[in-house]
């Protein structure tokens, strides 16, 4: 057998061995067996020295072709085997993707502060600022400056929490003290009007207190958000537009509002605002007690007497004020059946929101 034939036989053998190599280790062994220092091809090439100068180029060419063919086959087989090996490894690493993830639990925001923040955001967008004030207030700011008559039942010990006054002042009202837990956030508005000149656009969210026994629909402590605008040219139409906007942002663009005249000591004219029931869309259902409407806000034009108390010229400026109970909105939006859940700190309740 001539050298050329030997080369071609080695090629055929080699290609077969490559094809049969089952894994990367076997393939490496085939490479060594044919192309290694002691490999078949190397041995054949070593024999080239014995050939004549005329034969050598032709045989050399064949030898190179054989080497190239083996190299190519090795490379191809190597790629095939490595990707198979990778696939096998990846297959072995597959997980059940439906198993729960590994997350550090994130805390939730209390329903009341979540709603408060939503309301604040809506009014920030209308150019309001947020004003705050003390929760323990003076009778003057909570009642008198808000045009509440001296004998108004809301001032009674049955309705309002009074606090022991250590100043030694003679209490002018309600028997023992004129220091109380604010029953509304309106005192913040009075303080704002005392401190600042119009234009005033403020929102005052905060805790308020009334002597109600805690039951599914009452808490002695709850959250109110009031708004106040004092500027030139403010009209009842502006109040309507503002609250319409609020209701649409808060409850959805399809909800309707309804303004019913009402009476509050610190606004005139005053109104209660209803939003159309989201469950029956105004047709009447159990949730809205068949009226189609849910009461959510009280509002009105600031009474000139209130401006008088804080030294704002009621001829030049007009204004409006509105107030809402956050717990009520929570009950309406989330159907919370018992307000006491809001103060129990039950993790199973809090984590829902």
């Amino acid at each position, binding site marked *: 057998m001539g050298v050329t034939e030997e080369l071609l036989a080695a090629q055929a053998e080699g290609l077969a061995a490559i094809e049969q190599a089952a894994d990367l280790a076997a393939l490496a062994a085939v490479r060594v067996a044919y192309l290694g220092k002691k490999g078949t091809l190397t041995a054949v090439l070593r024999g080239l020295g014995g050939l004549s100068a005329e034969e050598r180029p032709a045989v050399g060419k064949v030898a190179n072709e054989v080497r190239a063919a083996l190299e190519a086959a090795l490379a191809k087989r190597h790629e095939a085997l490595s990707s198979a090996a990778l696939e096998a490894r990846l297959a072995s690493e597959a997980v059940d993707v439906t198993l729960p993830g590994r997350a550090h639990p994130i805390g939730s925001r209390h329903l009341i502060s979540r709603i408060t923040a939503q309301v604040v955001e809506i009014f920030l967008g209308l150019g309001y600022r947020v004003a705050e004030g003390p929760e323990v207030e003076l009778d003057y700011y909570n009642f008198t400056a808000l045009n509440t008559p*001296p004998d108004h039942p809301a001032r009674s010990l*049955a309705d309002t929490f009074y606090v022991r006054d250590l100043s030694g002042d003679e209490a002018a009202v309600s028997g*023992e003290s004129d220091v109380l837990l604010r029953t509304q956030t309106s005192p913040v508005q009075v303080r704002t009007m005392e401190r600042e000149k119009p234009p005033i*656009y403020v929102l005052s969210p905060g805790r308020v207190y009334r002597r109600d026994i805690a039951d599914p629909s009452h808490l002695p402590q709850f959250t109110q958000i009031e708004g106040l605008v004092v500027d030139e040219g403010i009209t009842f*139409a502006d109040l309507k537009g503002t609250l319409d906007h609020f209701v649409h942002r808060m409850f959805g663009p399809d909800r309707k509002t309804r303004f019913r005249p009402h009476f509050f000591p610190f606004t*005139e004219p005053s109104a209660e605002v209803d939003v159309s029931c989201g469950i029956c869309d105004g047709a009447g259902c159990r949730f809205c007690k068949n009226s189609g409407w849910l009461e959510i806000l009280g509002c009105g034009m600031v009474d000139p007497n209130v401006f008088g108390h804080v030294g704002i010229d009621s001829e030049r400026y007009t204004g409006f004020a509105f107030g809402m109970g956050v717990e009520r909105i929570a009950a309406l939006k989330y159907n919370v059946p018992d307000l006491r859940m809001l103060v129990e700190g039950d993790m*199973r309740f809090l984590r829902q929101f």
Partner: protein
Amino acid sequence: MRVSMSWLTELVDVGVPARELAERLDMTGTAVEAVHETGESLDGVVVGHILTRERHPEADKLWVTTVDVGDGTLRTIVCGAQNFDAGDKVPVALPGAVLPGGLEIKKAKLRGVVSEGMNCSARELGIGEDHEGLMILPPDAPVGVPFAEWYGAGDTVLELEITPNRPDCLSMAGVAREVGAVLGVPAKVPASQPVESGEEAAAACSVTITDADLCPRYAARIIRGVKVAPSPAWLADKVAAAGARPINNVVDVTNYVMFELGQPLHAFDLDKLAADSNGRVAITVRTARSGETLRTLDGVDRQLRSDTLLICDSSGPVALAGVMGGESTEVSETTVDVLLESACFDPASISRTSRSLGLVSEASMRFERTVDRTGCVAALDRAAALIAEVAGGQVAPGVVDEYPAPLQPRLLTLRLARVRGVLGIDLGAEEVAGILRSLGCDVEMGPESLQVTVPSFRPDIEREIDLIEEVLRIWGMERVEPTLPGGRGRIGMLTREQSLRERIGDVMRACGLNETMTYAFGDPRDPERCCMPFAEGELPVELLNPMSTEQAVLRRSLLPGLLASVSYNQRRGVSDVHLYEMGSVFWTSEGRKQPKERTMLAGVLAGAWHPPAWNAPAVPLDFFDGKGVIENLFRELAIPKLRVRACDAGHLQPGRAAEVLAGGEVLGWLGEVHPAVLERFEAHAPVVAFELDVRALVRLAADARPFVEPPRHPAVELDLAIVVDESVTAEEVERAIRSAGGKLLAETHLFDVYRGNGVEMGKKSLAFALEYRVPDRTLTAQEVESAHERLVRKVTTSVGGTLRS
């Protein structure tokens, strides 16, 4: 205020269905709380005649009655009412009837006796409030006739909520006027003039008012020779429709006229009032003298306060002015001559009396809200005429009318420009005038403004703005086109403190804490229970009228409320609790009026962050979980120098108690709550807690941390394990490392604390990972080596430790 539609339609031509009227009233400021249909659902209720009444053999309070309902068979009906006798006629609901409350009547055994129906009260039939006993019908009521047919039921009753500014609507005539204005139709004012005869009223009585502020008017009439008896059906019905219990013809007339015209009236039995030798009664209106008492109509002896306004005869008090009459002078079956009072009293005085005695009557409720004093005599005339009509008798000529403080008519100017300026709507002068006239105002037109005379029955209309409100109300709020305020430039934004508070909440939640809200009230025993005593000079804020002794003060710390929540959860099997609250705490001191308030942030952690998971065990929470939360918070608020320093605090477990400091200032505390404290709150240890002063956090927070370029050159990392006494803190060692490391040491990080094998008792090994690096070049091995050797030497010397081999 209950408004019977059938009564209302006598006074004003309503012309729309009751539901629609209710809607119109709702939208013009008179809230309709409910609409009741009476009669409609009274199928199966008939007039019955009680023939016998015997005690139930098994129950003291029940009666067994035999009732004739006109169908030829007598029925046995068991009944719990006490106000009836055999022979009375009553409404009877037969089996199958469904009463307005939804109650379905069935044949049923009551304590062993079969009852074949129910004898009914007015309230059960939805036609009155009276529930004290059966509704006793007049003797002439026809047995067996459907009750609704006889009663003339099929009426609709509107329950109106009358706001305190509208006393005029506490009468049918006032409601009719309001309805007339709302619907744009005229309303009638009922009036009568009595036929007078006999001796002058002035001969029988005189009136003296000691204080015209407390009693601006007192008018009286005398009616002689009345025959007190049950009222005729029309009168009893009207009184019942308004929600009162028919009593007798004289009293019913006074109530009727009160409901009709809004003027409370009182009838005295003239013969029971003390008279002088000429038979003349001297009525005096004055406040009580010390020690005076009065037995009121309800049989209760009342101690009178010195500010209680009284109606007196020469012997003493005979009525609480405007609130309730006295028992000894009340009209009874034996009354022959009547003194009829129509007066007006100071609202505040009546309100005080009513409140101090806990006595609210239809009269006091009206006087509290102001009664129109100009109407006293008209009401008196009407009542006198009606008494004469239903009870016979002669009305004495003349009215004894003491009227020391006549009401002056109020004249207001209403500028049309102001109407536009406040409401944002354009109304013509004619339209505005028309609305005000429909409400009873006299209006004089001017070019720019209207001159308006306010009717006496509208004490609430005192200013121009009050007129504007009336115009808007009647014109219709719904018709106002909404706009948004124009105004000059304004920017809505949160203050720095407000937005930082938002951020603090964000961090708490990112750390896994859930926001909660607890009561601001506290138990006065909390400081003791928590071992958190008040600081020197600080006092708790005490409520004068708490809801309970457990809520008698305002909280000084958020901790007690949060511990109660931990306990609440644990008792319900929720062991992993992560809560935070941001809220006010309160304290005061001697001489302070308003207490101090401070916003605090507090958190409690108990159990583990999560229950055991397939890929993560549940790790019990401890001190360092709380500290981690605070570390994150300080990082996020960019407060640089957080320090946590061991301290003694009664509420915390010794050795797991720390103060939180920044820049030398104590911001609050952190630790594991003392087991003894937890026991008092029924909570299980361990509970990690912290409480920080939010204002201080806000003050120390930086807007941003300074930029530091990320390192470009590689670091050399070396570990250092050093064995020190237990008493040496990690902070001390770390400080020693930092000071010894100089400029070459970029980072240190404690990664292990080890006690046990190879480390002597009483000592611990602290292992730190050190990173040597300078910003501008790569350090050589030699530089690092010599720096590290120097560091080891210095640190071991300064903290008294040895290198762990």
